[in-house]
């Protein structure tokens, strides 16, 4: 029951915010103080983690190659799976970051009668993974309408595209549906796939539940429980936060404070969790290095400096002792003047 504890934690977070904002004065804490603290932790923690990683040396090339490497010019090699120069590495990283290419290698082992073992590529993880991340990105860009004034064209454009189905009023957003579907799939995968279930930990379930909570409260606020969800008042608070003059001008629904509190938890938790893969994907040496260990000399950064010592130099240093011990030398001692 590794999911029981994180589930309880998220429910507790919801209850804390829900109950606390009933107390007069607490709105300021949850609407202003906590968001600033969370943002400071997020940015500070993120930079700390990245700089910490940057301090670890990568003494040799460790890209995970999974194709024919470069050998002879006439043998075709796999430019994406075994890149040899920066251009190819950039192409590989681009496909990894924007299209999650390596998830196409997610294989599923099945035993058929015979017995015959097959490994088949299972693309569901890729599909729902990419749905999740792009929905999340679109939602964050759309949220910028609450923080920016005047609202840039790109935000309105994305909003229009996302609400193209024109269902209901306020209009339904496609990404709200896809992100919930994707989270449910990613959760079901951890529960129903025995191998994945075995390796899933509390810190795998917690972000899933947390993001699910954030999206559910957001959706409830927009479509179902609109009481006191005054977007203008919320925007005044949000713009106030980013211009460092926050004001809470009206009684805003406690659902909004729950939403915000869960977001703050996510921000504060981010740098100390697996969610740091957002920065980590750029710094992973198994992806961002060229497979050129036989073409370029890579020097271990912590090697002590060893000066070359040739035989001629060695003999120069020890010639007298060598002659004394009767060891043959290439160059005799200079003749002693008498």
């Amino acid at each position, binding site marked *: 029951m590794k999911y029981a504890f994180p589930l309880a934690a998220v429910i507790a977070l919801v209850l804390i915010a829900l109950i606390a904002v009933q107390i007069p004065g607490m709105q300021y804490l949850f609407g202003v103080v906590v968001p600033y603290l969370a943002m400071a932790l*997020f*940015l500070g923690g*993120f*930079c700390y983690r*990245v*700089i910490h990683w*940057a*301090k*670890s*040396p*990568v003494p040799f090339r460790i890209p995970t190659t999974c194709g024919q490497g470069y050998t002879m010019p006439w043998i075709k090699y796999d430019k994406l799976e075994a890149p040899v120069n920066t251009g190819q590495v950039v192409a590989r990283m681009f496909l990894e970051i924007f299209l999650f290419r390596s998830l196409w290698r997610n294989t599923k082992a099945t035993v058929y009668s015979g017995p015959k073992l097959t490994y088949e590529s299972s693309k569901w993880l890729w599909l729902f993974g990419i749905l999740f991340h792009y929905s999340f990105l679109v939602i964050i860009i759309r949220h*910028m*309408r*609450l*923080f*920016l*004034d005047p*609202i*840039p064209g790109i*935000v*309105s454009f994305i*909003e*229009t595209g996302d609400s193209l189905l*024109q269902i*209901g*009023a*306020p*209009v339904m957003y496609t990404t709200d549906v896809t992100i919930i579907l994707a989270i449910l799939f990613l959760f079901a995968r951890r529960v129903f796939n025995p191998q994945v279930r075995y390796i899933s930990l509390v810190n795998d379930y917690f972000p899933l539940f947390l993001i699910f909570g954030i999206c559910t409260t957001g959706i409830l606020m927009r479509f179902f429980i*609109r*009481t*006191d*969800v*005054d*977007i*203008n008042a919320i*925007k*005044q608070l949000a*713009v*106030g936060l*980013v*211009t*460092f*003059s926050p004001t809470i001008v009206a009684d805003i629904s406690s659902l909004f404070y729950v939403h915000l509190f869960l977001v703050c938890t996510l921000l504060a938790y981010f740098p100390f969790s697996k969610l740091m893969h957002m*920065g980590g994907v*750029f*710094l992973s040496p198994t992806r961002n290095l060229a497979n050129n260990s036989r073409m370029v000399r890579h020097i271990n*950064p912590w090697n002590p400096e060893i000066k070359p010592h040739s035989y001629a130099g060695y003999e120069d240093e020890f010639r007298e002792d060598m002659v004394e011990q009767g060891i043959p030398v290439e160059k005799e001692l200079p003749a002693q003047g008498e």
Partner: protein
Amino acid sequence: MYDSGKIITGLIIFVLLVTIPVWYNRGTASNVPEPELPKDVKTCVLPKAEITAKHMQLLNQWRDEVIRTGDRSTLEIEGKQYPKSLMLACMKCHTSKVKFCDKCHDYASVKPYCWDCHLAPVE
């Protein structure tokens, strides 16, 4: 630190992206919209807080009632009968779209597509 040139550049780009709202607004608190309220009437269809937060849901409900179930019953406000209608109710009291609806909607970046078909009052 290794590869500090690339990593620090990347970090700076990241921090700039996250703080877009801060430098985009450039520290100026925004101009809060003040929709022009009708002068000759005092009450809306719903109490003020509710109509502000829920008017789109009300419009959606009216639309469904009128078009799907054919329920064209009227409602009475301050002794006058109003049909459940965007043009014949809302826009009878709120006579200006530009000075009322658009004020808020521009601020919150909402562009109701209703006006593709429904006519806004001539201004």
